[in-house]
């Protein structure tokens, strides 16, 4: 097992002192071995392996195609076997992290807020995506079928809305915030509410008339420049839909980017190593980075919980609203 050269000497020194039966003043030095008891590769022994989860539907299902190269990169960086779990929804990754079955995950902001509500400071965001134009946010779009009679948001009163997931930032949390800002209560404005389970599923469900409207993530641009990423564009590029079949009624954002969330009860050495290895990935292994569905030129930047403060507060407000709605206390 690899042991960093910088530590070789110190560890040998500890063993030598202890083995020689030190006395007197030297006892003080042995006290310096207090984090002793630790064996070679100690944090690795504690970890044994590294477990992570990826949500296939976050933006592009093909994101997980690069999983093999990504896993190899992490194994080379950490010297430990890496197990990657693919989750069909954000909730799978949330629960894996919250229950301690995963050591770190990539999650959208609202999903981190869920984790934060469950386990608090036992998990922390360490890196967030920075876009190719240096932006730290992305958008969502409320779309309808182009053949529908809906041309304004107001036209959707009493209709069926398909959200992505309760844990989706762009497909649930921020659009609902925007609706409230526009003077509409999302809990009684629509006639029926459904959850698609993913951005791709949301588009497909809209296309097959299961919803009248849905809300999905869009990126790779701004409302001014237009968008070049997100599930709508991705599906069109694969020939599964025609963009002309859809119409955007509303864009919302920017909102905080997805982030790497790590268990803080894991060894600090591991946390720092993962932060460093992932931050270096777009620079050292751009092909691996792109194979994960990430944009050339995008990168990861260090963040803390504070970056997600607004999302955490929003989610808490949402929970209150939903409870009030469930008890029939929400006014029009």
């Amino acid at each position, binding site marked *: 097992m*690899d042991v960093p050269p910088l530590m*070789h000497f110190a*560890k040998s020194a500890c063993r030598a002192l202890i083995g020689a039966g030190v006395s007197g003043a030297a006892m003080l030095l*042995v006290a*310096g071995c207090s984090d002793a008891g630790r064996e070679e590769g100690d944090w690795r022994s504690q970890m044994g392996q590294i477990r992570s989860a990826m949500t296939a539907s976050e933006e592009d299902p093909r994101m997980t195609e690069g999983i093999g190269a990504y896993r190899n990169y992490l194994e080379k*960086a950490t010297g430990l076997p890496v197990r990657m779990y693919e989750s069909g929804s954000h909730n799978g990754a949330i629960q894996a992290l919250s229950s301690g079955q995963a050591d770190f995950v990539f999650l959208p902001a609202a999903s981190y807020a869920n984790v934060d509500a469950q386990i608090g400071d036992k998990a922390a965001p360490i890196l967030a995506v920075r876009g190719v134009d240096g932006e730290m946010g992305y958008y969502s779009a409320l779309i309808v079928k182009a053949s529908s009679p809906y041309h304004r948001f107001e036209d959707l009163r009493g209709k069926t809305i398909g959200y992505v997931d309760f844990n989706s930032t762009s497909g649930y949390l921020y659009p609902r915030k925007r609706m409230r800002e526009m003077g509409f209560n999302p809990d009684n404005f629509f006639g029926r509410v459904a959850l698609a389970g993913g951005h791709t599923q949301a588009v497909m469900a809209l296309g097959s008339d299961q919803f009248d409207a849905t809300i999905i993530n869009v990126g*790779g641009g701004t409302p001014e420049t237009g968008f070049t990423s997100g599930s709508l564009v991705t599906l069109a590029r694969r020939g599964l839909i025609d963009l002309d079949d859809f119409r955007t009624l509303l864009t919302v954002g920017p909102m905080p980017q997805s982030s790497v969330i790590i268990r803080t009860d894991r060894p600090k050495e591991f946390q720092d190593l993962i932060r460093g290895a992932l931050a270096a990935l777009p620079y050292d292994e751009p092909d691996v980075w792109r194979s994960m569905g990430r*944009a*050339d030129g995008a990168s990861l930047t*260090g963040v803390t919980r504070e970056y997600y403060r607004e999302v955490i507060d929003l989610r808490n407000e949402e929970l209150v609203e939903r409870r009030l709605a469930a008890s029939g206390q929400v006014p029009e």
Partner: protein
Amino acid sequence: MRYVTGYGLVAAAMLGLAGVGVYAANAPARPDHPALRIGIPAATTAPCAPPAAGDPVGAHAYYKLIAERLDTTVLACPFATHSEAAAALADGTVDTAIIDAVAFRPHETRIRAILTVRDPELLPRVPVIAAVRKDDRRRTLGSLKGSSVAFGGKSIAYYDHEWRALAGQGIGKEHFARETVAESAEDALALVRKKSADVALLNSGAWRRACTGTGTGAWLCDDLIAIWRGRPRAALAIAVRRDMVPEIRYRFIGVHVAMHADHPDAFNWGSSHLAGRAAEFEPAEADALILTKSAGKTTL
């Protein structure tokens, strides 16, 4: 004052008992050296030593943080020039050093960049693409001397950033006979297509947006070719030996990329050696300090 933790305390004490100069800057490079020797720009070159009591508060915060998180003793190694620092790094007498491109060049096979800083007023070091028509036989930036160049706009993202990347390759405005600033990235590429310009320079985000269609597998730039892709060269970077153990390198990077947020005192001091203003430490590719292999040769 010295910052040590656990093993480092014992290692330093044992070396002291053995009469070995633990802070000797010119001690032979040893792969199992117990201390992390950090090269820092200074007025005069001096042997590696523990941070001095009179050092700034930020310096103590920086060294203390590194010592704690890398579980090692930290020594400060002052260098009056980047060249001296780079030579010491290549020789293995320091473990990290802040150096520039000139200092990097003679040692580029043995050392690499790992960190630089992001200027809050500029784009991050996003790659820039130079694209020409596929039927154009010129395949290097150098071969485009005297040609006409098109940009996708006059903003920081579409103009300043691209020039910054070219400047890092030693290419200035005199390299091109004519420059055109188009309304958009798409328009810049259109100028190349109709031979009103020879090359378009776009940041990688703009290139992707302009070339990505919405039809099945659509790539709208099959008639063009990217002959060069490079990030703006870092002016200064923290460098390490290429054979540094990955774990130490990644942990060192990991501590630095979070520093602006969780240890601002340490960040302000640590980043001040790299730039007058910095928003955060930004990882850097190994060759961030050199002309990419592109200046005179084909890379793509």
